[in-house]
């Protein structure tokens, strides 16, 4: 398959691993930002190809993981409201809130539907004029433009039975939060390839200038990731800090201006709570005044803030302070079927990746299941 096989080539991977080993002279700690990158790293066992002392921490770039519990509870309250059809991306269905999840609500009679695009939810609203159709809009700058396009269309067409529960988030404030966290060890980032197809490089140039930390915008295949790691350690060894675009086959320096115009038309930057990390300033995208009529949050009362199970360390995992097997509950009281927290429940979460792909002994548990 074109654009895949050349990035999963064993010889290219080994050559890059050898160049990384030849480049590093001391220990370095990098963070890959995206859940998709974490999954590739763990799935292909890339850590085993890296020289000792070169450590990768897993970042906060998993949209399901960082969606706050109270927002998930709000989606559940919406789904349980008579007359509401709740549309969601499939991976949100299994995510437990403080009381239930969408699959259980559906089994009890709620109308919950999986869609692959918010535009499908808008089309559904057209066919169900006497129902209120709500799309649960989660994700980073990658999925936000599709939500924005849908919101703009709904407003222009004057559709009154369509609403959005918006929980979109921005990557750069989360990276600043990671860098400023007490005990931070991250010295360079593998930046979010798909986010940058929309946003371009300028936000990351600003981050690099301010924090003096190298950022390599990186893809998701094994060869991409190894090349991203090489570009990062080259900078660290030379004492440089710049933005390098490893994923240039998809990321234009200016990103996708048309998508950004849509974001600007519909959203405004707002403060947003992140699961396990607290409220991060300017980290969210919320509906602006012209589109606030589409906000589904108005349909249900405010949800009380909910504390995470005290046993769950997903906040520390998301900030790169701990690795999944370091959690005492990992693989024992916390598994994909009985997740304690976000990083296990989302298929993109770091804990789920370790559970799915690592040998039981490496997962730190006795039984496979």
């Amino acid at each position: 398959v074109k654009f895949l096989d050349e990035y999963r080539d064993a010889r290219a991977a080994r050559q890059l691993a050898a160049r990384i080993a030849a480049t590093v002279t001391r220990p370095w700690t990098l963070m890959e930002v995206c859940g998709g990158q974490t999954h590739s790293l763990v799935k292909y066992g890339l850590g085993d190809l890296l020289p000792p002392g070169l450590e990768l921490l897993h970042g906060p770039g998993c949209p399901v993981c960082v969606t706050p519990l109270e927002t998930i509870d709000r989606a559940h309250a919406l789904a349980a409201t008579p007359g509401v059809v709740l549309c969601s991306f499939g991976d949100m269905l299994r995510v437990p809130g403080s009381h239930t999840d969408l699959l259980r609500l559906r089994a009890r009679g709620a109308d919950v539907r999986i869609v692959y695009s918010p535009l499908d939810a808008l089309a559904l609203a057209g066919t169900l004029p006497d129902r209120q159709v709500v799309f649960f809009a989660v994700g980073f700058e990658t999925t936000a433009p599709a939500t924005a396009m849908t919101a703009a269309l709904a407003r222009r067409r004057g559709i009154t039975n369509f609403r959005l529960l918006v929980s979109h988030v921005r990557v750069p404030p989360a990276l600043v939060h990671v860098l400023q966290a007490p005990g931070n060890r991250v010295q360079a980032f593998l930046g979010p390839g798909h986010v940058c197809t929309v946003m371009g490089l300028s936000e990351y140039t600003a981050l690099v200038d301010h924090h003096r930390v190298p950022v390599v915008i990186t893809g998701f295949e094994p060869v991409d990731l190894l090349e991203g790691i090489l570009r990062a350690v080259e900078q660290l060894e030379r004492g440089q800090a710049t933005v390098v675009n490893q994923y240039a086959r998809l990321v234009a320096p200016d990103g996708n201006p048309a998508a950004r115009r849509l974001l600007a038309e519909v959203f405004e930057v707002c403060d947003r709570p992140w699961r396990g990390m607290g409220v991060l300033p300017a980290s969210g995208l919320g509906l602006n005044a012209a589109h606030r009529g589409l906000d589904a949050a108005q349909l249900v009362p405010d949800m009380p803030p909910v504390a995470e199970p005290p046993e769950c360390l997903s906040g520390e995992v998301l900030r790169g302070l701990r690795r999944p097997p370091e959690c005492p509950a990992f693989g024992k009281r916390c598994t994909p079927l009985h997740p304690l927290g976000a990083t296990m429940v989302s298929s993109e979460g770091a804990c789920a990746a370790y559970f799915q792909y690592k040998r039981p002994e490496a997962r730190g548990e006795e039984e496979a299941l």
Partner: protein
Amino acid sequence: VTDLVFDCPVPRLDHDHVVLGHGSGGRLTTQLIQRLFLPAFASPLLARMEDQAVLPPLPAGGRVAFTTDSFVVSPPFFPGGDIGQLAVNGTVNDLAVGGAVPLYLSAAFVLEEGLPLDDLARVAASMREACRQAGVELCTADTKVVSRGKGDRLFITTSGVGLVPEGRALSISAARPGDRVLVSGPIGDHGIAILSTREGLEFETELVSDTQPLADLTAAMLQACPGIRCMRDPTRGGLAGVLCDLAAASGVGVRLVEAAVPLRPAVRAACELLGLDPLHVPCEGRLAAVVPAEDADRLLAVMRAHPRAREAALVGTVVAEDRGVVVLESVIGSARVVTPLPGEQLPRIC
């Protein structure tokens, strides 16, 4: 073959659609049986219209294999097949992979009020063709009708009996370190063909379901290699599910080589786009076989010479270490664990 199916003369019924009366046990039920099912299935045992099929004595020495399966696939007609074909092949294959020679099937139909009778006739005709291909007789059947909205067009449950010849005992707990793992062809075609028709997800592909009966293939394999330890058809849960079950039941590890697992480019591309692992995607006409190492090459040659397994491949090895665990050697040479599906990924695929 399809010409045969559609030329089959089905006498006109008084209705175009299933009505509740077709399940009443009265005159309309009789009409449905006599005008639609009996001509379609052409089974002398069924045509006796008794409450049960009384089977002729089975050859002495063997043991009877017995299995059952329900089919709820949505949509009932899909690229490369339909629910009727699937219902016959699924049960035939569950018998065949146990080393049984499939002989007789039952079929129970749950029909939703309003189902076009032409659709039912199409399903019945494709069941007959599937029975013919598998060499089985559909000898007893039942029909129920549920009100509109209480079902989804039609559900079919089939049960089957077959004969396991004397001395043959295949088992998922029989794998031993050193054994080889073979698959009979590319995996995941059925699952992706069904997914390509799903609402909101329609994508264009020339891919068709792999549904087919495997009894002739298993017969040829067992004749050439009586030492086969175990066979399984990787339906729901895919190849990953079968191999994880095997590793757990036999108390062994399995090493799978990613690059050796046959996969059509269309399946691979769809899995990449949808975030699926092809090892979890169901097949309905493939099998995995575990065989002692010394028999592996011969068995592979026999499989590749058979029209139902032209693209068979050797994909892995049974090992003593990593008991209960399937480890995949990835295309870049690293190793990762293969786990069963955590939840339902593709509902109503069969």
